[in-house]
């Protein structure tokens, strides 16, 4: 009896174990994905350049100068990307256009995020007939040529930016709704949701407090993948001349202008095209990397 108590060693101070949550884990994996990390750095550079670049130039995006029409790029007079057919500085225009393209990407994605998550979570949580009806509606909407409807909207109601934001966002929520619904279906059978139900928490509070926070991972992935899609739509509309109006500009509008005179003034095409393509490319890569990082089971 005595021996036993004697041989017990003094309790060693237990090292504090820091739990590795979903996010720390995912970030660690993401950091090992070289393509995604490079893309992320490029994206940050583009965003910083777009935000700060215009103020570093002596020109404004709508300053026309008829003595400096269609100049090739040169560092001497601070026309780093050259000028366009009205003598406006292309460096500033590209960056200002980038602001708009990115802004559309973010705002419209936010719109689609809000609609998609609330719709999908509601359908998935209530299940049964509600779910069936709501998903049938999504199926029907899926078959619609939405881009054409957006064009209709812009033609009929004039080309206004706010309308474009909302319209683009409103066409992109379908994927989000489907994914969120699928996740919610499996989440709502989990114990913590049952506990909340038993505790008498009202359904929409459960959705807001217990379901949605658990969807963040998958939603983050789709947000990163939706942003380039939305930017593509915006640039498509602007390319057709249905998007932003002069003198304001966006990458799509600049590519349109550049494509018209590409034989004589190729820089007008190349710089905006490069920015647009690089940004879309990086968003896609980061999104893919994020998906792999958050869902390692999906890796091949």
């Amino acid at each position, binding site marked *: 009896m005595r021996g036993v108590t004697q041989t017990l060693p003094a309790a060693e101070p237990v090292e504090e174990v820091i739990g590795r949550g979903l996010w720390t884990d995912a970030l660690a994996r993401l950091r090992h994905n070289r393509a995604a990390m490079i893309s992320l750095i490029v994206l940050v550079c583009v965003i910083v350049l777009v935000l700060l670049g215009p103020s570093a130039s002596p020109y404004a995006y709508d300053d026309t100068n008829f003595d400096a029409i269609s100049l090739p790029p040169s560092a001497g007079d601070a026309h780093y990307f050259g000028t366009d057919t009205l003598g406006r500085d292309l460096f500033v225009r590209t960056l200002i256009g980038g602001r708009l393209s990115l802004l559309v990407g973010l705002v419209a994605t936010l719109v689609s995020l809000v609609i998609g998550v609330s719709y999908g979570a509601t359908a998935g949580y209530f299940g049964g007939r509600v779910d069936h009806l709501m998903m049938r509606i999504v199926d029907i909407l899926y078959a619609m040529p939405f881009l054409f409807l957006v064009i209709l909207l812009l033609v009929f109601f004039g080309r206004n930016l706010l309308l474009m934001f909302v319209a683009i966002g409103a066409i992109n929520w379908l994927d989000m709704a489907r994914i969120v619904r699928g996740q919610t279906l499996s989440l709502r059978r989990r114990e913590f949701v049952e506990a909340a139900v038993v505790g008498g928490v009202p359904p929409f509070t459960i959705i807001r407090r217990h379901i949605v926070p658990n969807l963040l991972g998958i939603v983050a992935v789709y947000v990163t993948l939706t942003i380039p899609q939305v930017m593509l739509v915006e640039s498509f509309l602007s390319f057709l001349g249905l998007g932003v109006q002069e003198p304001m500009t966006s990458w799509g509008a600049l590519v349109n202008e550049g494509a018209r005179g590409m034989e004589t003034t190729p820089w007008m*095409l190349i710089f905006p095209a490069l920015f647009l393509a690089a940004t879309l490319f990086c968003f896609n890569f980061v999104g893919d990397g994020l998906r792999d990082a958050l869902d390692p089971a999906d890796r091949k």
Partner: protein
Amino acid sequence: MFRYSVKRFLGAGPTLLILVALAFFLMRAAPGGPFDAERPVSPAVRANLERAYHLDEPLLQQFGRYVAGLVRGDFGPSFQYPDYTVTELIREGFPVSLRIGAFAMLLALLAGVTAGILAALRQNRAADAGIMAAAMTGISIPNFVIAPLLILLFAVHLDWLPGGGYGDGSLRYLMLPVVALALPQIAYIARLTRGSMVEVLRSPFIRTARAKGLPAHTVVLRHALKPALLPVVSYLGPATAALITGSVVIEQIFGIPGLGRFFVQGALNRDYTLVLGVVVFYGALIVVLNLIVDLLYAVLDPRVRYT
């Protein structure tokens, strides 16, 4: 199968009707009318015009008239081309668009599936990474950026191919637009094919086929390819939609007199009826093609019929 087909047919109807209704009432809700010219017309003339185009009827009746016209293939008159009906414009433009679209689809399927299979067979090796990086580039770069670059390279610098126009519709003229239109779809299809091929190659029946001692190409082409192509089949619907949307810009860039160009011109000139007609026409086309794809899928994969 019969029950499934009937269900699908019944599903396509409401979709079409909602589309037509949405487009039609949007047009009617738009500010400004078709006769708001620079010079105001006298009330009497206006009333006559409105009577001639049935604009004085109640809205629902107009809608009914429009739908009844659609059923007969009559899309109404064009506002901006007074000598043409929208139907005539569609009949003129669509064959050109169809030709380019069909070639692009064919190219996208051939190149995309081939690239996808190659990548899957070289999984996680340099060739795989290369193909997938190229595919990502193809997805990221919009085709209205690719198209001018192609023109710059092949028409302006190398002078191999005409840089625009439709000419006599020969392959020389079609080459660049078809490639520009197909590139993003090649990329999507390659990614899809790779993903499903990788999965199929890991399944037990492929192991069995290999264990039997079948040659590698038989295993891939005879056994793995068919199930691996199922996701590609279901992507055909969205691919068609994407090609149609893409054709709008491609026709604009290459100056091809297809339906997409009419659409853009109509949109910029506020030719309401033309724009409405094209949206309805393409919408119907997409809905019908989706229906065909669904049925095709059910034939290929019997499981979906019983869900």
